[in-house]
C-alpha cells in the first residue's frame, strides 16, 4: 500500500500493554509514538501531531481525562480510551471530556483495529459538510428529515428524528445519555432518561431488522448509545 501511514500516539504506563499495542498497530501499517505519562503525552501530541490517540485513563502522574481535555483545547484529533470493564462513570466523564470512543480491557486485536479505523474514517469525513448520511443500508437525509432502508422510507415524530439526527451526526461515536438528553430536550430535563429509553425503543422498531437484536443503534451499557454500520468482524 502506498497510502500515507497514519500516526498513532499510545498513552499507557504499563510497558507490556504498550508492547502489544505497538506490535499490533505496526502490523496494521500504523506508525506508533509512545508516551508513558500524562505530561509526556501532551509533549508528544504537540510535537508529532498524531492522527489518533489511544489513552489509558489511569496514569502515574494524573488522570488520562486531563490529557483528553488538554488536547481537545487545540485539536479535533480522534481519541480512543482504554478502560476497565466496570468503570462506567470514568468512561462517561472521559467521553464528556471529548473522547470519541472507548475500548474495554482486555480487548481483542480485531476489535481494537476496527475501532481505530472507524475513528480515523469519521475524522476524514468530518470535514465534508454533507446532509445525507449513509450508514450501512440506512440512509438519513438531514435536510429532508427522512430516513430510508432498501425496505422503504420510514416516518419519525419530530422528537424521534432529533434523537436519530443527534446520533447520526456522530456516526460510530458513542453519545452519552446526558449529551443526548441535553441536545434533544435541553438542559432542564437532564435526568430524564426514562423518556429517552422510550424514544430509542421506538426508533429501533423502525430502523432495525430485528429490534431485539439491534445492529445499528447499539446500547453501551450505563454509558450511552452509538449509531453505526453493522460491524462485520
Amino acid at each position, binding site marked *: 500500500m502506498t497510502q500515507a501511514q497514519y500516526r498513532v500516539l499510545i498513552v499507557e504506563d504499563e510497558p507490556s500493554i504498550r508492547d502489544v499495542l505497538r506490535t499490533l498497530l505496526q502490523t496494521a501499517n500504523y506508525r506508533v509514538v509512545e508516551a508513558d505519562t500524562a505530561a509526556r503525552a501532551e509533549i508528544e501530541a504537540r510535537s508529532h501531531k498524531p492522527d489518533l490517540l489511544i489513552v489509558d485513563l489511569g496514569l502515574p502522574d494524573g488522570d488520562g481525562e486531563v490529557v483528553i481535555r488538554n488536547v481537545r483545547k487545540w485539536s479535533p484529533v480522534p481519541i480512543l480510551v482504554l478502560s476497565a*470493564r*466496570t468503570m*462506567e*462513570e470514568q468512561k462517561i466523564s472521559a467521553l464528556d471530556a471529548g473522547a470519541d470512543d472507548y475500548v474495554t480491557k*482486555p480487548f*481483542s486485536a480485531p476489535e481494537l483495529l476496527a475501532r481505530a479505523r472507524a475513528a480515523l474514517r469519521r475524522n476524514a469525513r468530518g470535514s465534508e459538510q454533507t446532509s445525507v448520511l449513509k450508514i450501512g443500508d440506512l440512509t438519513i437525509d438531514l435536510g429532508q428529515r427522512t430516513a430510508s432502508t432498501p425496505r422503504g422510507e420510514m416516518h419519525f415524530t419530530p422528537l424521534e428524528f432529533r434523537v436519530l439526527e443527534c446520533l447520526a451526526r456522530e456516526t460510530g461515536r458513542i453519545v452519552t*445519555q446526558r449529551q443526548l438528553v441535553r441536545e434533544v430536550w435541553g438542559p432542564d430535563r437532564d435526568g430524564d*432518561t*426514562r423518556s*429517552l*429509553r*422510550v424514544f*430509542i*425503543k421506538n426508533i429501533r422498531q423502525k430502523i432495525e431488522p430485528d*429490534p*431485539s*437484536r*439491534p445492529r445499528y443503534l*447499539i*446500547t453501551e*451499557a*450505563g454509558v450511552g448509545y452509538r449509531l453505526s454500520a453493522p460491524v462485520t468482524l
Partner: protein
Amino acid sequence: MVESRPDPDELLASVQAAEARARRGKLRIFFGGAAGVGKTYSMLEAARNTQASGVDLVVGYVEPHGRIETERLLEGLEQLPTLPVRYRGITRREFDLDAALRRRPTIMVVDELAHSNIIEGDPPPRHAKRWQDIEELLDTGIDVWTTVNVQHLESLNDLVAQITGVRQRETIPDRIFDEADEIELIDLPPDDLLQRLKAGKIYIEEHARTAIDRFFRKSNLIALREMALRRMADRVDASARAAAVVDRASRAWMARDRVLVAIGPDEQAEQVVRAGKRLADALDAPWSVVYVETPELLKLSQQERNRRIDLLRLGESLGAETVTLDGPTAASALLEYAGTRNATKIVVGAPKRSGWRAWLRRSTTTELARRARGFDVITVGEMEQRADAPRSGRREDIDSARPIHWDRYGWALIINAVCTLIAFAMYEYFEPTNLVMVYLLGSTIAGIRFGRGPAVLSAVVNVAAFDFCFVPPRFAFSVMDAQYLVTFTVMLIVTLVIANLMASVRQQTRVAGARERRTFLLYAMSRELAATRGTDAMARVAVRHVAEVFQCKAVVLLPDGAGKLHLPGERPEPGSFVGSDLSIAQWVLDHGRRAGLGSDTLPAAPALYLPLGSEDHRLGVLGVLPTNPRRVLLPEQRHLLETFAGQIGLAVERARLAESAEASRVEAETESLRNTLLASISHDLRTPLAVIAGAASTLAERSESLEPAERERLARSVERKAHDMTELVSNVLDLMHFESGRLALHRDWQTLDDLIGMALSRMQGRLEPRSVELRLPDDLPPVHVDANLIVQVFANLLDNVAKYTEPGTHVVISATANGDRVEVTFDDDGPGLPLRNRARLFDKFQRGTEEGATIGAGLGLSICRAILRAHGGEISPGERPGGGARFTFTLPVKEAA
C-alpha cells in the same frame, strides 16, 4: 471486736478513685477562718518558692484588693492576662479559663475558689462558678492552688449566717473541699487579725469601718476560727478512715448508718438539708434527701414547686442521693421508703402546727416519731425567722391559677330547677320530709359532678327553694318550723363532705394520671426504640418523642469514632433542633455533665444539653431547645427529661453493642468466604494457566518447526483460555464486591429488551447453535435498575445455557408487568435443573453437576442472586412445563426511595 474484711467493691472503688486522682491535677487549698488571715499571701509565697525550683507555675488570677504586700509578691511570677468582661456598662477583669487551658502550666494559681462568674456578662462565662472552672483545669491534669474561707463551705453556710448574721451567697460544694489533695490551714489569732484590719492591711481604708462593724467582731472571728479548725480536723479524720479501708484494717466501727433527710416545701427545708449533711458526715454514712409528692402538695404555687428542685439540687451538691416519692401522705411514703433502704436516722424539720390544729391533724414529724420502728427520728429546731425569707404565697397563686368554671354553677342551678319540678309533682302525695330527699339527691349530684363551689350554691338554693315552695306558708320565706333549719344544716354538711371527698379523689386521680402519663410516654418511646435498628434511626425516633412530649425542638448528637460530635445529616425529623451549639455539646460529651439553659454551666445558652450514657461510657448528647423556655425548666419536666435521656442512652448503647457484634460476624463470614474462594478457584485458575504457559512456550521455541495451522491453533487456545480467566476473575471480583455490602447501585431507567439485547451481544456467538426468543409485551414499562448488573444477570443465565445444555436448545425470555414490578421468566428446554440440592444452587461454588471440565466455579447463580437482592428482588429456580429449566425473578418499576 469482730474482724471484718474490706468489701471488695469498696476496695475496687477506692483503687479506681485513686487512679482517677492520679490522672487529675492536684488541688491545693489555702484555707482560712476569715478574710485577711493571709491565705493569698501564703499562697503567693509558696508559689515564689516553687517557681524558684524550676516548676512551670502561672498565676491565673489574684484578687488585688489593693494590698501592697500582695502586689509585691506577684512581681516576678508569670501572670495570665485577665479577661475583660463587660457587664452593665462596666468592664470587669475575670479569670480567663480558655487562656489557662491553652497555656497548660504544671501549676495554676487561682485565687478565691468561691467566686461567682458574671453570668450575664459579655462574653458569657462557661461556668457559673469559679470552682467549676477549677474542676475543668483539674480534669485536664493541671495542678491548681486556690484559697477559700470557711464561711463559703455549703454545709456550714447557715451556721455561719446564724453566728455572724451575714449570709454568704457564694458557696462551694463540700465535695470540692473534701476531695482536695492538700489543704493548708492559714491560722491567725483574732486579735492579730483585728490589728491587721485596723492597720489597713486587709481592705482599703474606707471599706474597713463598715466591714469591722458588721462582720469582723471578735466573737465572730473566734467562732469562725473554731469552725475552720474543726472542719480541718474532720477532714484529717475522714482521710484516716479512708486509708483504713485500703489497709484492710477492721471496719467494725463503720457501722452502716443511712440518713434520710425528709423535706417539705417550707422555709426550714434548706436548714434541714444542711443539718442532715452534718449528721451524715459525723456518722460517715450515706444519705438521701427525700421529697414526697402528696395530693395536697400538688396544689402549691409554681414558685414553691420550683424551690423543691433547688432543694434537691442543694442535696445533690452536698453529696446526697435525691429521691422524689409519691404517696397519699408524706409520713406513710417516708416510712415505706425508710424500710426499703434500711435507714437508721430520719432528719425532719420541727412540726409547724400548734394548738387545736396539731390535735386535729398530726404533722408528718409527729406521725413519723409515733410510728418509728428501727430508726431514730431527729427533729431539727427552727432557726429564728429571717426577715428576708420569701413568704409563701400559696393561696393567692392558687386562686389566680385556677379559672372559675361558671358553666358548672349553671349546671348546679339546672339541677335545682329539676329537683323543684320533681318535688312539685310529688307534693300532692308525699310528706315534705320526703321532698327534702329529692333536694338532697340533687345537691349530692352537684357535689359529685361539679366540685365544692357549685355544691354549696346548690345546697343554699335547694334549701331556699324547698322553703319557698313547700314549707308552709308556701311561696314565702318565713321559717315557721325549726325542724327545717336542721334540714338545711344537714343538707349543707352532707353536700360539703361529698364535694370535698370528690375533690380529693379527683386530685388523687390527677396525681395518678400524671404518673401514668409519664410512664406511658416513656414506655411509648422505649417500645419504639426497642423496635428500631441502628443508632441513626434511634436518634430520629428519640428526637420525635422528646420534641412531642416536651413541646420543644430536640436533637440527638452522636460522636464519630474519634469522639467528635457532628451535626446530623440532611432530612431532619419534624421537631428537629437545627443549629445546635456543637461546642457546648462537645463539652457535655467530654465532661459527662449537662450544660446550657438552666444548668450550672453556660446557663445563658438558649438550649439545654444532656449527656447520654453513663459517666464512663458516654454515648452522645441530647440537645433540647424549648419553644417556651419555662416549660423544660419545670421540676417534673426536668426529671422526666432526664429519665428520657437515660432511656435513649440505654437504647443507643444497645445499638452500639449490636453493631459491633454484627461487624465481627460479617468479618468472620468474609474471612471464611475468602478461604473457600481460594480453595475453589485455585483449580479453575491452574488449568487455563497451564494451557497458556504450555502453548506460549511451544510457540516461542518451536515456531519454525510448526505448521502455520498448528501455530494458529495454539495461539487461539491461549486467547480462549485468557478469555475464560478474565470471566472468572471478574466474577470473583464482582462477588467479593457484593458480599462486602459496599455495592452502590447506579440505577436508571432501562427497557428490558435493551438489557437483554446487551446481554446477547455480550455472549458473542457462544450460544450458537442455540436460539433465544423474547416475548415482551409492547406496553412493558421501563424498569429502574443498574443496567450493567441486570445485563450481567441475563448474561450469567445465558452462560449457564451455553455451558449446561445441548446445542439446539431453545430459550424463551418472557415478562409481564405486575403492579410496581416486572416479572421475568427465563425458560429453556434443556435437561432441566437437578432435583437434588436445587435449594443450594445459588450457594457459592455450587454447580448443578458435580466437578467437571466446565470453567465457572459455580459463581454465576450466586452473583445473579446477589444482584437481584440488591435490587430488592429474589430469583427462584423451577421447572418449565414440558421439561427444562425455569428461573423467575422480579425487577422494580418504581424509583427506589
